[in-house]
């Protein structure tokens, strides 16, 4: 499978995740977000960039609790609020949607 952005074709796996991490750019992210019916706002972008930075550093997508804790400390929320905030941005879950838009590989595990 593949997606086309501005005349360039990018390879994706059968679930629509980018195959090559380095193919990612903001236009590609925009296109992936459209596929998930998500309108990217400032908060979406900041999360997507957090995910990419984390992945660059650790070569693995962060656990959800890492994500909610980061949101909680950045925005002065408690963990419960942070979780609701996160799912407000990505209704089908950070693993499914945020990682896809950030161009990270499909998370594994039995979620």
């Amino acid at each position, binding site marked *: 499978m593949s997606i086309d952005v501005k005349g360039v074709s990018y390879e994706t796996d059968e*679930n629509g995740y980018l195959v090559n991490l380095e193919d990612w750019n903001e236009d590609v992210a925009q296109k992936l977000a459209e596929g998930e019916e998500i309108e990217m706002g400032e908060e979406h972008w900041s999360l997507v960039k957090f995910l990419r930075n984390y992945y660059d550093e650790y070569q693995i997508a962060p*656990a*959800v*609790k890492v*994500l*909610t804790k980061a949101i909680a400390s950045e925005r002065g929320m408690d*963990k*419960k609020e942070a*979780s*609701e905030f*996160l*799912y407000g941005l990505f*209704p*089908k*879950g*950070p*693993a*499914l949607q945020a990682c896809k838009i950030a161009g990270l590989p*499909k*998370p*594994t*595990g*039995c*979620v």
Partner: protein
Amino acid sequence: MQGANDSAANGACQCGGGCGAESDGAFLNPTPMLDQLESGPWPSFVSGFKQLAERTKKPMLRGVLDQLEYSYNTKMGYWKGGLVTVDGYGAGIITRYSMIKDKFPEATEFHTMRIQPAPGLHYNTAMLRELCDIWEKHGSGIIALHGQTGDIMLQGIEQDKVQECFDELNQKGWDLGGAGAGMRTAVSCIGPGRCENACYDNLKLHLKALKHFVGQLHRPEWNYKIKFKFSGCPNDCTNAIMRSDLAVIGTWKDAIQVDRDEVRSWIAERGVDALVNEVINHCPTKAISLKRGDMEIESRDCVRCMHCLNAMPKALSPGKERGISLLMGGKNTLKVGVNMGSLIVPFMKMESDEDIEEFLELVEEIIDWWDDNGLDHERIGETIERVGLKQFLEGVGIEHDINQVTRPRDNPYFKAKY
């Protein structure tokens, strides 16, 4: 049965051609390996699958049987996981994609929806009928009551139909269960609803606790899974001590209540021999003695094993000062081997709403500690084992107590004759 007759009347395959079954008019393809499973003395899931497939003519069911037959021949499983959720939820759907969908296109997707059970499994028939109808409309129609997780397992649905199926179920009052690294679906025994041994209202506590943690059930974000089970008494019919991280088991503080008249009529009927051989000799802590032809229980020696209460249900019943005990750390083999729960909170009253509040606050505290100190993929019992019980107790602010027992039970399956 009615369904099976219907399908015979309907006749030929409705797959639209290509399934290879048209020639002899049968809907299902031959499955000689699976048929073997039907020959034993017990009911077989294969018979259930076949009946349902013949009645509903759902190609998905045929595909799954074909793929399973192939699995038996090649001694390999061909399901792989993935990610499917409904809006606002991060858990509750267990994905199953076929790894050999080119061979068995009808079995391409066969996802499971976990649905939370009612406390004590008390349903009314109207709700169950609605559940069945909705499920057969959107999914395969296969239901496992209940899976090992305690959920109602609705097995076999395609990704595209998951949201609409969930919406309809949710309208009728059903909700998805837990999966992944979060709070899981809880289980409770039949409780005071239908059992005289229940020492607290475990059905109410189950409902309140799960409502309290519903966010973390649908949006998993902890180290790993954590499970509640609520047993009304130490008979522990949910096997909480072995199969849950947070085992809430009913208990009592004072003496076993003895109805002397009933004891006498039990002895009159069964004889003193039975009292000695089946009751007194089976007491693990020798707390019961025979005195002038009657029984006497030394309460301070009793470990609440429930044997004598089970043997003499009319004569003996749990004490008057009832509540719960909280055991923690039960789980199957993971990083370390199988663990049974250790008794962490020996006794807590569980009568008023304030008692429930206090309990939930304690559990919040416990989970917070585990969230901060546990490693990824580490159950709470393993965390406690790694850092030490002392550190855990200090971390959550539980006082040391002589009544905290590391191994309150050795064998959850033991059942004496009575």
